[in-house]
């Protein structure tokens, strides 16, 4: 057992660290550091840089632009990306639909979609959740009826993140209403420009427009857009959701946030001295740092174990990462609120597009919206209640 990184691993880390901090524009990284929303262009610009230098899709098959990295290298890559406040490549492209197409799609489908997906020439969004099916995803009701060489899709998706940017959407649809819930579902790729698709924004409590409803009204989809086999979509979705869960711990992001909190708490005053000198504030931060360190070590253990797992299999411990990772992210947003104190109160998104001066320090403007917005991280990607159900069954055997 040697928990230090090897010389090769350190060299790799230094290489990606240098790359992330030089290749991605500071203006974009500063937005990530402060929790400001990125524009569509920011996301695409950043992803294309990563892709150009081969740093976009390491988890994909090598033939399609992936890397033959060790699990530790993948970890270091993610950690350094997050520490440098580099935007993660669009998750729908790189962590979700890309791996599914690479694993289950036909050669033709791969050629058609994978390079464009890696380079953000297509902006993907995800059509899984429906109004009636939240945690109970398999109860989804959006229908796709086969008519000749097309599917005709009718139904509604909800919580579709960034559908306003989406050029394509990958959907779970019901292709067999007779079969048991999980067995009648297919995985379909749909061009958002197809007639019959309507996107309606859902404004969230932080005032952001991040999620949407997507309505399908007799939307015609060519059958070649079916991924893999008809009625096997649930398997592909499970594969996809497993991939989602590892990244969601976001240890590097939280480490960057801790560092930022220390900087800000050195600026803000409490009782006539910098807040960072307040023993109680320090202890609150230290308590989260301990949890974060434990999470990081646990993640490394999961990463190290990956070598021993069948390729593509998911360590159920990744549910623990999601659970703890989400709570730590949320606690850090609360601490930022505390750092800025009364300056959390002004709602300044109202100013967007206007010219009013910022109230209080610039870094305070996103404190409350981020706190509100981050309540989502224990809800999406399988709520923390669902994660506990999974762990109870898969790990504890209860």
């Amino acid at each position, binding site marked *: 057992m040697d928990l230090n990184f090897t010389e090769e691993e350190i060299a790799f880390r230094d290489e990606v660290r240098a790359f992330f901090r030089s290749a991605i524009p500071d203006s974009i990284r500063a937005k990530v550091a402060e929790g400001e929303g990125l524009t569509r262009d920011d996301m695409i610009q950043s992803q294309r840089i990563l892709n150009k230098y081969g740093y976009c899709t390491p988890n994909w098959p090598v033939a399609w632009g992936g890397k033959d990295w060790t699990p530790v290298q993948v970890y270091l890559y993610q950690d350094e990306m997050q520490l440098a406040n580099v935007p993660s490549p669009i998750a729908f492209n790189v962590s979700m639909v890309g791996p599914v197409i690479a694993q289950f799609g036909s050669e033709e489908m791969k050629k058609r979609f994978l390079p464009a997906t890696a380079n953000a020439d297509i902006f993907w969004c995800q059509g899984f959740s429906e109004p009636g099916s939240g945690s109970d995803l398999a109860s989804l009701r959006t229908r796709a009826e086969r008519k000749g060489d097309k599917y005709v899709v009718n139904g509604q998706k909800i919580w579709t993140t960034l559908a306003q940017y989406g050029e394509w959407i990958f959907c779970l649809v019901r292709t067999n209403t007779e079969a048991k819930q999980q067995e009648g579902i297919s995985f379909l790729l749909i061009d958002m420009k197809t007639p019959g698709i309507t996107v309606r924004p859902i404004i969230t409590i932080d005032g952001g427009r991040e999620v949407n409803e997507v309505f399908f009204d007799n939307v015609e989809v060519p059958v070649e857009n079916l991924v893999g086999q008809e009625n096997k979509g649930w398997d592909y979705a499970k594969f996809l959701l497993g991939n989602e869960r590892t990244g969601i711990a976001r240890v590097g992001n939280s480490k960057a946030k801790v560092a930022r909190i220390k900087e800000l708490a050195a600026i803000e005053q409490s009782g006539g001295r910098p807040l960072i000198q307040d023993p109680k504030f320090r202890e609150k931060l230290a308590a989260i740092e301990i949890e974060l360190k434990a999470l990081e070590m646990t993640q490394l253990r999961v990463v190290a174990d990956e070598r021993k797992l069948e390729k593509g299999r998911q360590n159920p411990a990744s549910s623990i990462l999601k659970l703890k990772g989400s709570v730590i992210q949320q606690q850090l947003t609360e601490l930022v609120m505390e750092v800025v104190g009364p*300056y959390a109160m002004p709602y300044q998104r109202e100013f967007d597009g206007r010219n009013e001066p910022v109230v209080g320090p610039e870094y305070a403007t996103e404190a409350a919206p981020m706190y509100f917005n981050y309540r*989502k991280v224990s809800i999406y990607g399988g709520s923390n209640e669902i994660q506990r159900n999974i762990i109870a069954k898969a790990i504890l055997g209860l």
Partner: protein
Amino acid sequence: MDFDLNDEQRLLKESVDRLILDQYQFQQRKQYMAEPAGYSAAMWDRFAEQGLLGLPFPEAAGGFGGGPIETMIVAEAFGRGLVVEPYFATVVLGGGLLRRAADPAVLAALGPQIVAGKLKLAFAHIERHSRYDLANVSTSAKKDGSGYVLNGAKSVAMHGDSADKLLVTARMSGGQMDRGGIGLFIVDATAAGVARQGYPTQDGLRAAEVVLTNARAELLRDNALPAIEHAVDEAIAALCAEAVGAMQSMQDLTLEYLKTRKQFGRAIGSFQVLQHRSVDMLVALEGARSMAMFAAVMAAEENPIERRRAISAAKSQIGRSGKHIGQEAIQLHGGIGMTLEYSVGHYFKRMTMIDALYGDADHHLTALAGLGGLFGAAA
């Protein structure tokens, strides 16, 4: 000891509850917020008609002589309605500062205008680095003829943009953090040298940044800190009651949702985990309700140590209960709880802002610990 309301209080409660039920549904509130001032002028008049604006003022000032219990009744109902009118700024806090710090003559002159809905107030106190400290004041007051001129910048003055007069803390002597030497001044909001930038707050209310540049002001009281502290303590008691109203609404909404929302073929309220978490929300709510009552009873206490202990204990409890209930209400709702179209998130945001008003849960826990706690070593 008696937790029952007397007849007058019961009438007051019925009328305010009715007002909120009839006039303050979620959609109605949205319309009020869309008015130019960010709240409903008609509703303000309605408050005046129903006598709510005069509630805590003595009869000599045109009011009805209500105390903290009456304010608690109104505040709790307003918490359920998420009322956006400047009642807290003008009547509770502004009115309280006048009652505690101003000469009776000033109160007698201004009181009736407030009661009639003609005068709105705001308390401009917070400065860039004062955080929750009432004694941290660097805005300066200099004698100038019969009055004073003030210089300084004040932040996040609740409803400062619609106020007619500002109640301003300024330093007459001493260092930035000295308890002595702080004066409470009254300033015309439209006077020369007063620059205001209004904006919405996270909870849909309004506030303002105020910059004072040789602004002419009238002194209400010098060495005003003890009086200000008492007024703020009373205001905190009202915030506690308002918070209880908001928490009760979140609890009600969540229970309703758990009973109707179905997943995996059954109402999610039938899942034992969600049942127990609802119970923990209820326990937090009842603790908060109890402490809000305690705060109301102790708000009038003249012994500042006893009063501050009680108020800090209550505000700390309210902050913790509110965070717990708010976060759980969102979590148990899932995605729908995150949307602006649904009311629970609005309660959550108001609750979050109440925690940040006049000291959050940890600030008041520290304060209480500094005061030796609630139960004496010689009990």
